[in-house]
């Protein structure tokens, strides 16, 4: 893969600002690239190629039959890829940074807001008939949980013979 000059500069900035893992992932994603268009959206190819046999979940023989009826020559797990071309690497990097930085922050904020809404529902439920006025939902702060001292969970379970 030939990395474009602007992509390398973004990688250097990410690395210098303490986002080295992100810089590495960006380079990997550019190199791994994308599936060739013939393979993208192939979710239904096998379905189309099948002969329409009814698959009953209680009979694995039909599932096997379904497998052998697949008429395609291409191995289902065979994937052809191409690296992101240099001319598109800048746009790819911008999209990458949006999905890795902006979207998770938005998701986290929304999760805290949803948790707040659920807490308010709880309050109304608990105090049915006694709530006066409208309480503005406040986000619930979601934090890392420290691992409490727990000992060995396995030691506390009764024996079970795996089969």
């Amino acid at each position: 893969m030939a990395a474009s000059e602007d992509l390398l500069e973004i990688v250097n900035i990410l690395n210098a600002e303490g986002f080295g893992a992100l810089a590495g992932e960006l380079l990997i994603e550019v190199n791994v690239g994308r599936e060739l268009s013939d393979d993208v959206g192939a979710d239904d190819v096998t379905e189309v190629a099948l002969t329409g046999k009814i698959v009953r979940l209680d009979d694995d023989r039909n599932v096997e039959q379904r497998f052998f009826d697949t008429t395609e020559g291409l191995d289902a797990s065979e994937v052809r890829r191409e690296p992101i071309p240099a001319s598109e690497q800048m746009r790819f990097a911008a999209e990458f940074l949006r999905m890795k930085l902006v979207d998770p922050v938005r998701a986290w904020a929304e999760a805290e807001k949803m948790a707040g809404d659920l807490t308010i529902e709880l309050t109304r439920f608990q105090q049915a008939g006694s709530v006066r006025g409208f309480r503005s939902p406040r986000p619930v702060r979601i934090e890392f949980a420290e691992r409490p001292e727990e000992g060995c969970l396995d030691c506390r379970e009764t024996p079970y013979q795996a089969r």
Partner: protein
Amino acid sequence: MALPAHIARDLRSALRSFRAKNSPMTVPTSAGRALEAWLMMSLARAAQRSGRWSVTLRQGDGSQLPLGATFNFPTYQSGILPSNPTGPSFVQLDRAVPGVDTLALELHGSLQWKGRSGATHEIDVSLLPQSIAQPLRAHGGHPRGLPIAGYECKDKIGAASTDEMRETIARLFDLALVTRPYPGWDCRMFAATSPHVRWGRRQSIYRAFFATGAYGVVRAGGFSRGARNLGRHYHVRRHEGIYGPGAIAAVEARFLQVLDDVDNI
């Protein structure tokens, strides 16, 4: 072409600001915890909005989360820990349908389940009945069997490889109790407590087990052709581009279907 100076300057400034303003949970090296928390709360909200479930946030000892308290999202892999209010929080779903038996379910993050092999498997977001979780909270332990719903969250933006889907399916295979855990036991999951507790129905084949729950890989990116085919065959849904418009709605829809049919699982 070199990066224009003003873009380089803005990017540096944005990165510094990002690190200063946001918790370590949302920075990219934290293995997608933001996605897990968002998924968990989205499913909880969908259940609440259905009108058929009353949803509450719970502390690690099972008590209701007080107003103003923090929701402790686990960042480590563990089974259900001994009752402790500072332990991992979870979401409780209580069925609120007149004329239908009451039922309490629990939605957990990063919960480890134990497979038939004895290996433990972390599931990023999983749903299990309280009748299994509660006895485990007495002393701690791992739920065994196949959860009612289980999701793997990946914040990777590239297309998922076939290997990634294989990992998910391998976990489900080890968890499915196709063979009876004890003579005469036909169940979907159980808690190896004293006395043993069991719940749900057993299926005779793996695919039937997987078809009667909600399982999926939830990704910021997409899926390769091989991952799609593998997942489709084993009823593991492929939820791609999850931050895109409408993508989370598909996850919620299947989750609600399974909740509605939970008595037949």
